């Protein structure tokens, strides 16, 4: 049923797009969906298309992994220590409030064009990861913490067996948001910094040549890649939740085990 509603949503969007295009009657301003799909099909046969996709994908992966690493580290420290939280909070708030375009323009002074999108995306995405990791660390069950302390569980064991698994749902949710944000900021950064082999650069070139259908096609590719990566990440998340947090299906698991005669009481 959700799939049917999803497909219906997409169909309505395409109908609205087609209707708007028919009203505007200008392919230069708003090309209809069939023209955009045709442009996308044509582009996908070129080497430039695949090199742009791979170039942007590499930048997104680089910025995503860096955001995760930095955000996890700072978030964990912030979650464990109030002093560290107070120390880091002005920086995090400052970065969060900085407009992404201002960041990209500044980064263009400091970095080669290929790394401008990465730097910008890291600065935009890592605070998301930071906040999630911090909230996750703070969400740990105080009763379990007290139990661990009373049993003198070493801090290293407590970190990996209690704090990290407790924080995992927050971390995974933050990472998913960081991934989507990385795509948006990387492509925006590419539009401005114009590196070689980039979806954003190709988008900008098409705009300069007034190829509106191509601009739409490049945007569509970005949306599809972002959606696909979030979907794949969602599969990983579901797997991790299954391994670490089998809490939700409690009643089902128990009754099914009773059915199988494995359950004692």
């Amino acid at each position, binding site marked *: 049923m959700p799939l049917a509603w999803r497909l219906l949503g997409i169909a309505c969007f395409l109908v609205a797009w087609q209707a708007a295009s028919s009203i505007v009657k200008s392919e230069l301003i708003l090309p209809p969906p069939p023209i955009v799909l045709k442009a996308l099909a044509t582009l996908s046969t070129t080497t430039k298309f695949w090199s742009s996709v791979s170039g942007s994908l590499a930048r997104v992966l680089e910025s995503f992994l860096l955001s995760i690493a930095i955000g996890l580290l700072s978030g964990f420290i912030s979650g464990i220590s109030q002093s560290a939280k107070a120390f880091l909070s002005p920086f995090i708030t400052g970065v969060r409030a900085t407009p992404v375009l201002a960041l990209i323009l500044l980064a263009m002074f400091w970095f080669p064009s290929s790394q401008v999108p990465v730097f910008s995306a890291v600065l935009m995405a890592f605070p998301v990861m930071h906040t999630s990791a911090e909230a996750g660390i703070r969400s740990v069950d105080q*009763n*379990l913490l007290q*139990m*661990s302390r*009373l*049993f*003198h*569980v*070493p801090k290293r*064991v407590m970190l990996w*067996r*209690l704090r990290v*698994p407790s924080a995992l749902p927050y971390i995974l949710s933050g990472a998913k948001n960081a991934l989507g944000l990385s795509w948006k900021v990387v492509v925006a950064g590419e539009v401005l910094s114009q590196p070689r082999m980039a979806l954003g650069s190709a988008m900008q070139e098409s705009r300069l040549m007034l190829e509106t259908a191509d601009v739409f096609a490049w945007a569509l590719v970005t949306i599809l890649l972002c959606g696909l990566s979030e979907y794949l990440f969602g599969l990983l998340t579901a797997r991790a939740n299954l*391994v*670490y*947090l*089998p*809490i939700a*299906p*409690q009643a089902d*698991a*128990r009754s099914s*085990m009773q059915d199988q005669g494995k*359950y*004692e*009481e």
Partner: protein
Amino acid sequence: MSMAIRNLRKSFGDLLVLDSVSFEMQPSSITAILGPSGCGKTTLLNILSGILAADAGAVTGLEDKRFSYCFQEPRLLAWLSAEDNMRYALASLQGTNTIDQRISRFLEEAGLTEFRHFRPHQLSGGMQKRLSLARAFAFPSDILLLDEAFSAVDLKQKIELMQAFLKLWKDERPTAVIVTHNMHDALFLADQIVVLSQRPAHVRGILQINTPHEARLFGSSELAAYEQQLYGLLGFIGLDQDTNMSSN
């Protein structure tokens, strides 16, 4: 060497919780602290274990003692199996073999060997409590503190839990302190019952029980006699004989 609590006093702000509490415990004995809910039993337990400091009074014979704990709720890590939950609590011990041996031994005595790879959500409430008990016993200690560990389960599970407790306790016989508001729990398990009053708690009386655990059958005349004495200490004679004092 016996352990003694002398004139213990504790308040939180203006609220006086413990007022001149005194009693003694013999090594390898089971002491039940019996009193109404909210009278300060857990506070007393926390002072014994050193989590809280008393305002006045003295606790002797507990210096350099190792403590283990069993809580009212099982406090298990949902993502770890039964044996990994025990391994987690024993992480401060040296020697993998020793840890594995203790885990196997206490899981077996708690009747959970075949469930060692199960996670908490796959176990019933009673089994989770037994696991929590097994974990408390597996952690090498001189003194075992149990805070309402036999509450919040149905009668069948409670009896199984108390039997599991006695079986585990007889293995190494740590000095056990059981906090409870249920007099039957105390009568069934304890060698001595320290009866506390309403807050601010003081000791209303101490009942020594000399009947061996095997002979403590509910309904027996011997246990009934102890029960009458306990009612007397609690000041319940002639009143509704509700043994669960949480409503008082």
